[in-house]
């Protein structure tokens, strides 16, 4: 058993940390205030290979392994959850779909620009009537000659506004439910595909959260993710990619929690009440100790799961645990540290205020925590011979 970081990982960690502190952190407040995406830093991150971290070099990736990928997301999450999530969804979910199930040609054509960060990716599944009940999507894909005609709309699509490559899920055989869903690769600018407005959200103001419209949007059959043989098998692709995505969310949350803790510790040392720093008060010490403890527990849950991925082992249950636990730890951490800041925690001058607004959605997106609990319970009960339904 070995928990040491080898030379390479330590190097990566330093590189991620420096980049996050120097380039990403200074922009965080601006993004939040101006409600815009960090295009300038995404470009810098792309140059460093951050946007293709999980992928092999032959597809333009930087091949740093899953543990390295989680470290990157942690460092980014510490300073700016918006930036971290843009990159996570781009590489860990959208591009990941193409990596997992795309044809060789699709990987060359679409994955490479994504890995290099030349284009941003987006994952379009959710609809007004299909959130947790993802199989109930109603966007249709109807065969017409060598093409498919897509009709419908998607909501709350992360990166929608800045992405050029979209993985879009549509019902090609509506009567078959989940087994009638196909994944299509759709590029921005395809006639019939319009990018709608961005939502106004509580936090994560740096992330475009967009509505997408498909009006008789014609997509070649060659753009079925995985080729014609993967017709009606899109749901399985989505589930596989979301597994990896959940691990990424957990890693981002680990970073957010750690960033909150560091802010809280610093504040507690500086702020004086009753004749000394509030760090001398047990109530504050308890907040710090509990937060630090949960973060340590989360950290090794994340790395254990990342290790399972790199070992090629099954990790669905663990990924859900990471997302569930990570989002709840992050929420508690930010909340506790906000309390530590007292009144200042409510003032926009202090990053903790933004973190509080940013972190709330982590218990909701990428599969609500209720869905995560369902997945975990289903896995445990299935091993004991009982099959349950959502």
């Amino acid at each position: 058993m070995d928990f040491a970081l080898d030379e390479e990982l330590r190097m990566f960690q330093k590189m991620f940390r420096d980049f996050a502190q120097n380039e990403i952190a200074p922009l965080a407040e601006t993004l939040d205030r101006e409600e815009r995406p960090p295009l300038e830093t995404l470009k810098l991150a792309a140059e460093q290979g951050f946007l293709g971290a999980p992928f092999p070099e032959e597809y333009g990736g930087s091949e740093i392994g899953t543990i390295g990928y989680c470290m990157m997301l942690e460092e980014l999450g510490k300073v700016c959850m918006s930036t971290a999530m843009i990159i996570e969804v781009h590489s860990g979910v959208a591009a990941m779909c193409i990596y997992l199930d795309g044809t060789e040609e699709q990987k060359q054509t679409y994955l490479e620009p994504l890995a290099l960060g030349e284009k941003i990716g987006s994952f379009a599944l959710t609809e007004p009537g299909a959130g947790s009940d993802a199989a109930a999507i109603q966007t249709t894909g109807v065969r017409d000659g060598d093409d498919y005609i897509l009709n419908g709309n998607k909501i709350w699509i992360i990166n929608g506004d800045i992405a050029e490559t979209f993985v879009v899920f549509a019902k090609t055989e509506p009567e078959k439910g989940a087994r009638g869903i196909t994944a299509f690769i759709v590029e921005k600018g395809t006639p019939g595909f319009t990018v709608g407005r961005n939502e106004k959200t509580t936090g994560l103001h740096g992330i475009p959260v967009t509505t997408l419209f498909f009006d008789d949007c014609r997509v070649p059959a060659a753009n079925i993710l995985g080729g014609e043989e993967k017709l009606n098998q899109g749901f399985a692709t989505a589930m596989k990619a979301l597994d990896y995505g959940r691990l990424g969310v957990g890693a981002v949350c680990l970073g957010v929690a750690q960033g909150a803790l560091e802010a809280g510790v610093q504040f507690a040392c500086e702020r004086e009440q009753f004749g000394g720093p509030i760090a001398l008060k047990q109530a504050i010490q308890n907040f710090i100790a509990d937060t630090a403890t949960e973060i340590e527990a989360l950290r090794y849950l994340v790395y254990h799961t990342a290790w399972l991925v790199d070992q090629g082992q099954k990790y669905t249950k663990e990924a859900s645990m990471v997302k569930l636990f990570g989002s709840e730890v992050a929420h508690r951490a930010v909340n506790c540290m906000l309390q530590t800041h007292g009144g200042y925690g409510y003032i926009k001058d202090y990053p903790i205020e933004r973190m509080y607004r940013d972190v709330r959605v982590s218990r909701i997106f990428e599969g609500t925590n209720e869905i995560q609990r369902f997945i975990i319970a289903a896995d445990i009960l299935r091993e004991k011979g009982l099959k349950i339904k959502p």
Partner: protein
Amino acid sequence: MDFTFPKEYQLLRRIIREFAQKELAPIARKIDEEEEVPRELIDKAAKLGLLGVPFPQKYGGMGAGEMGYCIVMEELNKVCGSLAAIIGAHIGIGAMAIHLDGSEELKEKYLTPLARGEMIGAFGLTEPGAGSDAASIRTRAERDGDDYILNGSKIYITNGKLCDVVSLLAVTDPSLGARGGVTAFVVEKAFPGFSVGTVEDKMGIRGSDTTELIFENCRVPKENVIGEVGLGFVTFMKTLDIGRLSLGAACLGASDLALEKSVQFSKIRQQFGAPIAHKQSIQFMIADMATEIEALRSLVYRTVWLVDTGQPFSREAAMCKLYGSEVLHRCVDRAVQIHGGMGYMRDYFIELMYRDARITEIFEGTSEIQRIVIASDIFRQVGVRISP
């Protein structure tokens, strides 16, 4: 990074599990009711090496290090909290004090029989006026020729009745307080003037005795000092530091069993026409338990790695104890809830687990003390010193 257990530890775990299932599980309820772990069982455990897991083989121990010890505590606490408490006090703090700071002669004289289970050990720190505030102990050890004369009493000592020797902390110089005025001793039950007082009647871990020890002019030879005269507090704090990690492992084991029992029960118990496993409330409790357990597992074994590779581990060990005991509490609580009315009946093992669990947030350093250990380590690194 590598999360696999080395093969010898995988085999060790399997054998302990078999032993626990075969020898311990059938009598766990009886142990609780009769408030005693049969001596034959302790002897069988000793034969396997369970009474000296982390200690070197040259002292009669198993030579299995901190990892072996945590695995043993994990597997035993799954099945019987009382035996785990006995072994935890015996190895984790009682014998551990001698292992950490005892002279070679002291180790040969006491550690070897303790590791072999020929003697049972205990850790004598707590007094009526000194619980979390351990530095304010009053038991006095006065020098008299080649001996020390002990006067005072200790309370809430696990294995107080069962033990043959106790690692004890007493005041040798009242003017110096905890820094330089307190010394650790190995005191044999056989020494005249050492008697056993009240045996407490407890909520849980009833198979282990929690006892008052009384010292009236008890003569202890100077050779029985553990470490340096006056530096006993340091020895005892070091001992508690490492003792707490194995408690985290013990909590992990019991939490695992609470989950297993809950899953099993939810499959069988039918309400509203189907097993309750089909209800989201139940599923969600199971999912939360499983998640916390996984997080605790990695935290514990990573801290074990810190110990076994000679790295600092105080903060992490305190986290394991704090988090482990709180996870256990939540797990047994949810498990009782899942069992419904049956969770309250003594026919069901979960009832026993619920009572056994509560003490883990209190003994060997309350959760509040653990938080101080953690917070002071964090603040020390940014230059702020805090104290209880």
